[in-house]
């Protein structure tokens, strides 16, 4: 599973992307966030405020209960601020 991190979530984690292999019990987005948080303080700090963590799976916005598959591209980022 390919992970992408953007903006201050990327800055707090200290990494823009990585490939992860979460255990079988990680079936949906919220499971993945829980699992990531336990990987270190950088993840815990980046993801603690769940309300502002947005998730895209295969480049589409999804909810926290969206199911995950092994080959997914999963991106975590704060609310977007483009435009002007």
């Amino acid at each position, binding site marked *: 599973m390919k992970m992408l991190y953007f903006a*201050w979530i990327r800055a707090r984690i200290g990494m823009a992307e990585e490939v992860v292999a979460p255990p079988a019990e990680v079936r949906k987005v919220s499971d993945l966030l829980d699992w990531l948080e336990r990987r270190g303080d950088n993840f815990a700090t980046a993801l603690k405020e769940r309300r502002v963590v947005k998730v895209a799976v295969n480049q*589409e916005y999804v909810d926290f209960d969206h199911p995950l598959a092994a080959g997914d591209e999963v*991106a975590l980022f*704060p609310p*977007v*601020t*483009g435009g*002007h």
Partner: protein
Amino acid sequence: MPAAATAPALTIRVQEADFDVGAELAALSAGNTGIGGIASFVGLVRDVAPHGRGQSSMTLEHYPGMTEKQLTAIAEEAMRRWPLETCLVIHRYGRLLPGDRIVLVGTASAHRAAALESCAFLIDWLKTRAPFWKIEDDGNAQRWVEARDSDDAAAARWAKAPGSTESR
């Protein structure tokens, strides 16, 4: 009149370089004399430096691939909701200075209300759906720009079907 190349219905570009507003808007109606009006919005970088405290700048990060996909989906939605002939979104990324252009939205239609409403729709939706993030440098410190509730509210007003373009 020599045959002019008609613009594709939908043009989406995500780029670091600046764009030429006049040329882009002219291209929207090239070769299509059924178009009666072109509405556009140009977003610019505002100066955030405290008065006289040096140069501010802004850096836009985005999610390559998803950005184009989302902008295309937003533009396709606009073309479903309004009778548009052509539609354009150009969004820049990278480091920008005060006064620099960030984004251009353009919509062309036989009817001015369709062009004007869909242009507002596109910029409102883009601001809450396109995966861009801004970090501002006021010449002293950098900070990630926070999403604003007013942008969510602006996008939310388009959730319902738009008013009839005939009566507006």
